[in-house]
């Protein structure tokens, strides 16, 4: 298998996973926010 | 002038800036030929209410009807607006400023501008640029800018700030005169006492809502 080929495929998935991870992080921050909001309301 | 027909109707007005709501459901009617003093603490929503009436803020929800129109653009030539800042070009003289703004309103006769400058007690032939005016003069020129198109509704944001007491009472007299011609005037101010006896109604705002409307200043002081 060719090194360049592996590099390209790996790069593709690294970028996708990095983006998904950033979405996850935003999501967990949002959840934290929602919980705080609920606590403030009670 | 019929006293009963409301010239401005505001219903359930909400204005939200991101996570902060500056107006939280303002509902009110205002009738023609009256001088309203809008009072309240900083951040109570006075300026936002005025800007929303002037069409500068788009309300998040709620309705405004001014002079029977829903769209501010239809009646903008009948409204005069004076903001906290001067709304004047510092590099031009007062006269040059007004001449330019007159063009925006399609007013070609410069007598109107001269008249407006005289009305606020300034000299129309003053060549100095506005940037070199004293704060009080600038404030009065700013009032002239709001007046020159002979508006039916005047929206004034802090017209007396940084003005000496003598000029301020002069401005109050002028406003009373204009009101007596059947115009509707809104004055947002911290110096409520200046308008005591002149304003027809005092509107107290708190946290984005109108909390009280009273006919004289003392009455409100007792209720709150």
């Amino acid at each position, binding site marked *: 298998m060719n090194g360049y080929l592996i590099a390209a495929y790996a790069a593709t998935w690294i970028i996708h996973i990095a983006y998904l991870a950033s979405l996850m992080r935003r999501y967990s921050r949002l959840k934290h926010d929602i919980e705080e909001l609920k606590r403030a309301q009670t | 002038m019929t006293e009963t027909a409301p010239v401005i109707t505001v219903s359930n007005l909400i204005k939200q800036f991101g996570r902060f709501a500056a107006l939280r459901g303002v509902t009110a009617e205002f009738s023609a030929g009256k001088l309203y003093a809008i009072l309240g603490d900083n951040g109570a929503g006075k300026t936002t209410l005025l800007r929303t009436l*002037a*069409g500068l803020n788009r309300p998040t929800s709620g309705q405004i009807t001014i002079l029977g129109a829903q769209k501010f653009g239809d009646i903008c030539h009948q409204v005069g607006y004076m903001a906290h800042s001067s*709304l*004047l070009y510092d*590099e*031009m003289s007062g006269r040059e400023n007004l001449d330019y703004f007159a*063009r925006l*309103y*399609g007013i070609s006769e410069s007598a109107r501008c001269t008249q407006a400058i005289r009305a606020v007690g300034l000299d129309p032939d003053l060549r100095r640029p506005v940037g070199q005016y004293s704060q009080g003069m600038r404030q009065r020129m700013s009032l002239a*800018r709001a007046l020159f198109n002979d508006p039916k509704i005047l929206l004034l944001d802090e017209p007396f700030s940084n003005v000496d007491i003598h000029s301020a009472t002069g401005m109050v007299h002028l406003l009373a005169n204009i009101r007596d011609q059947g115009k509707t005037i809104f004055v947002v101010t911290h110096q409520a006492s200046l308008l005591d006896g002149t304003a027809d109604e005092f509107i107290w705002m708190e946290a984005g809502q109108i909390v009280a409307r009273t006919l004289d200043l003392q009455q409100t002081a007792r209720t709150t």
Partner: protein
Amino acid sequence: MPAPTGIMPATLRKDLRLEWRSKDAINSMLFFSLLVVVVFSFSFDPNAEESRRIAGGLIWVAFLFAAVVALNQTWAREIRNQVLDAYRVSPAPANSLFLAKAIGNFIFVSVLEALMTPLFVIFYQLRPLGPTWQLLIVAALGTWALVVNGTFFAAMSLRTRSREIMLPLLLFPISIPALLAMVQATANVLTGGGARVWIALLLSYDLVFTTACLLLFETVLNAE
């Protein structure tokens, strides 16, 4: 109520007068592009035959950066005492303001180009081998392309945080085709070719984006 006429020339006159009195934009532009010329001549050997090929790029990049300086200035003037609000409450149409600003900037940048081009010619010992008249057309069309989008995006970045940085970020990517056309056309004429296709490209770019600006400016001005 019909919209008042003659606002565009009045606004343009006002802008030119303000610029004449303060000379903010033109001075900073001149100094800036002078710096660029000098710094560039350190990084390249200006006497080489090679310089004829890259001079087109150098000139336009210098003018582009200088134009950004002027573009930031034009709206800063309107923001200083919130004068823009005075325009927005008036019945004057938004496009008159836009056209006046764009034409004003066109004049400023053209003046700059007229002053700086001889300097470039001297420093880089340029002598066009192709038809010179085409260079004039390229300059006019190219400047308008930069200025019309620049005026629009400057109005847009007015409403953002850190607006001075925002303008180049918005303007440069969109301007790449125009810049490429200007640079290539200039290089072609300097090295003895024609530039008809590039001129056609610039012309259609100007037409498309001027139309887009006029259609969308009101939305941006009143965005809230």
